[in-house]
């Protein structure tokens, strides 16, 4: 199989990984009439870390599909552009993809801030659209051909924090107070809203509830203020690199709590796991994937093996335990819908996605209301048995133990966080 070397070139053409008929450039590929899938992705700027690893996952998918003989007998080709993590670039890129490149199928960039500005263009053309890790994009737009590859479902407020708060029931003594700290961004604020609205139901009184700006350098005073409020349960909703800053400050100030964690984005990422090492022990955090026996869906291990072999040279996350399997699954949804509908007609694809479940490397997926997952699957995992920053253990079960949801549960809660080892 020929390795893609044209990484810098946006036209990550993928036609015919085995067949030599299709070359790297679209012009050469015309003979084999490829199916072209287009999207924008953040390859530079703030969202680039996840954007780049999603692109790698998509390439692996395209190679896999082409090795199986393509879609409806036609090779698959990916056309992608860098949106530079700037929402203002997105509308023109999608009109370019649809009108100039005349791609057959469009999929989304990574994250809400990039998906949202693509929606007017997508809706105007009636394109069927599978998005990656957007949160509540379709709440106001209510577009009926929008489908979301994200575990959060259509009611983030009503469901997101459920798993975390359910973990309070596993504690030996029921906790009474909770603190909330969330970064000023879309997803974290939704997460905070969710835990805020549900706390009372679990008998928790909110003793600290603040937001912080992403430009914060020193978290010591904030953590100190939380410590002064003496919460039994500590909930953070943060983004990298703040997640590091928060956890470092927590360990320096020896903040402890019966249940500690929340919706921190960062501890899912290999570089953060390597840096923080044992600081992560007993952290209970939102996640989307963990290599536990309960999540060994068919194909996920094969994907991760391919991904890990190529991640270092592509300068992306070396483990692929976060959104990477979902990026692959996003394309699997497209693949299965095309194969079932035997057509590239957008209405037919949307009808299929609405009606039928999909079997992907992240499990069976069924789309429901507003195109979100019919049943949300927010995992809450606990980091356990960590002694150093070595990453090998994250490839094996027992490091990120799943506590919620019950059907995927793979271990028991350890408490408290921050006790001397």
């Amino acid at each position, binding site marked *: 199989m020929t390795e893609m070397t044209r990484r810098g070139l946006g036209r990550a053409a993928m036609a015919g990984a085995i067949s030599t008929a299709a070359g790297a450039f679209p012009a050469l590929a015309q003979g084999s009439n490829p199916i072209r899938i287009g999207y924008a992705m953040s390859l530079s700027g703030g969202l680039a870390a996840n954007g780049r690893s999603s692109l790698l996952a998509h390439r692996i998918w395209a190679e896999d599909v082409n090795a199986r003989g393509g879609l409806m007998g036609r090779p698959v080709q990916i056309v992608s552009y860098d949106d530079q993590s700037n929402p203002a670039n997105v509308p023109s890129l999608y009109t370019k993809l649809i009108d100039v490149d005349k791609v057959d199928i469009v999929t989304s960039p990574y994250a809400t801030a990039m998906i949202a500005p693509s929606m007017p263009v997508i809706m105007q053309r009636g394109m069927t659209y599978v998005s990656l890790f957007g949160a509540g994009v379709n709440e106001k737009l209510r577009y009926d051909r929008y489908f979301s590859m994200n575990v959060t479902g259509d009611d983030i407020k009503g469901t997101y924090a459920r798993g975390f708060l359910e973990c309070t029931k596993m504690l030996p003594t029921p906790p009474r107070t909770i603190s909330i700290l969330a970064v000023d961004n879309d997803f974290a604020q939704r997460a905070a809203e969710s835990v805020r609205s549900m706390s009372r139901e679990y008998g928790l009184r909110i003793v600290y509830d603040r937001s912080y700006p992403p*430009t914060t350098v*020193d978290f010591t005073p904030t953590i100190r203020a939380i410590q*002064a409020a003496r919460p039994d349960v500590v909930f953070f909703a943060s983004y990298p690199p703040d997640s590091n800053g928060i956890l470092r400050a927590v360990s*320096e100030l020896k903040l402890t709590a019966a249940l500690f964690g929340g919706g921190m984005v960062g501890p899912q990422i290999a570089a953060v796991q390597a840096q923080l090492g044992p600081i992560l022990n007993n952290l209970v955090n939102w996640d989307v994937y963990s290599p536990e026996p309960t999540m060994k869906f068919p194909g996920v291990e094969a994907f991760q093996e391919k991904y890990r072999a190529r991640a270092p040279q592509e300068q992306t996350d070396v483990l692929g335990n976060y959104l990477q399997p979902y990026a692959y699954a996003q394309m699997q949804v497209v693949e299965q819908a095309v194969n079932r509908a035997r057509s590239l007609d957008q209405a037919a694809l949307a009808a299929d996605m609405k009606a039928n479940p999909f079997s992907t490397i992240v499990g069976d997926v069924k789309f429901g209301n507003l195109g979100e997952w019919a049943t949300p699957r927010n995992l809450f995992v606990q980091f356990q048995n960590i002694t150093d920053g070595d990453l090998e253990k994250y490839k094996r079960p027992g490091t990120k133990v799943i506590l919620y949801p019950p059907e995927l549960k793979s271990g028991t809660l350890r408490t408290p966080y921050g006790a001397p080892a």
Partner: protein
Amino acid sequence: MDPTLSLLLNGIVSGLLLGGLYAAAASGLAVSFGMLDIVNIAHPALMVAAGFAVILLGGALGLDPLLMALLVAPAFALLGMGIYTAYHHFFERRGDEALQGLAFFFGVMFIIEVGLVMAFGPEQRFLDPDWAFTTWRFGEIDVPLRMLIPALVSLAAIGLLWLFLQRTFIGLAIAAVAQDAQALRLMAVDPVRIKRLAFGISVGFAAIAGGALVVVQPIEPSSHHVFIGRVFAVCIMGGMASLSGCVMAALLFGVVENLTASFFGPSWSPAVAFGWLLLVLAVRPQGLFGRAA
């Protein structure tokens, strides 16, 4: 101890430590921006670039980041001299420094940031010495070494720079060059050479600040955005050309930021800090610690 009092004391202490980092970043700027009148907006970007150098070399050689920063500082000083040579040749000599010079440094800043993305990818990088995971406790007050050691190293380096500027002929010449280049010429000192040297020192200080930054937090190519406003704010509040004023302003800035975070929540600290700067500019443009012109 009363919890509020404990919060207050800890806020002040952590603010002072944070201020130490700001002082490291701003003192280099006090030399270039304050003394030489060169608006080096790329200073924080150079600091982050030095941080990357520290992580790569320090990681490869197994050296402590702060030690590594001292070792790469001369290389950055040379780089700074190169930048000044170009700046002098194209802008200062022609009297174009106001607009074009500013744009030049803006471009340099951009080139550094994007260059780092292309060379190392957008992922955050880190190099933690073992001692950075230790915290000293004095009663109710916590002093994490992660913040303390970089602050102390920075202040020590600034102290040495202060001695150098006060006690050596070259140091005095640097302080004089912005005031009266002609007088220096009469003393058979080439003002351009002095300025080149001073700018080199300022960029060398950016490297030391970069090492301190690496200890405090993981860095990514865009990390310098956070610092641009802050270091210029500190420099102006400190009265531009005064190192001691710069350190005082940096410490004060850190304390204001952290006390705001302690008592009013962190979301207001940047607005308070920068609003304060706007106020200073409006009512006391010579800076809090500067003398009236």
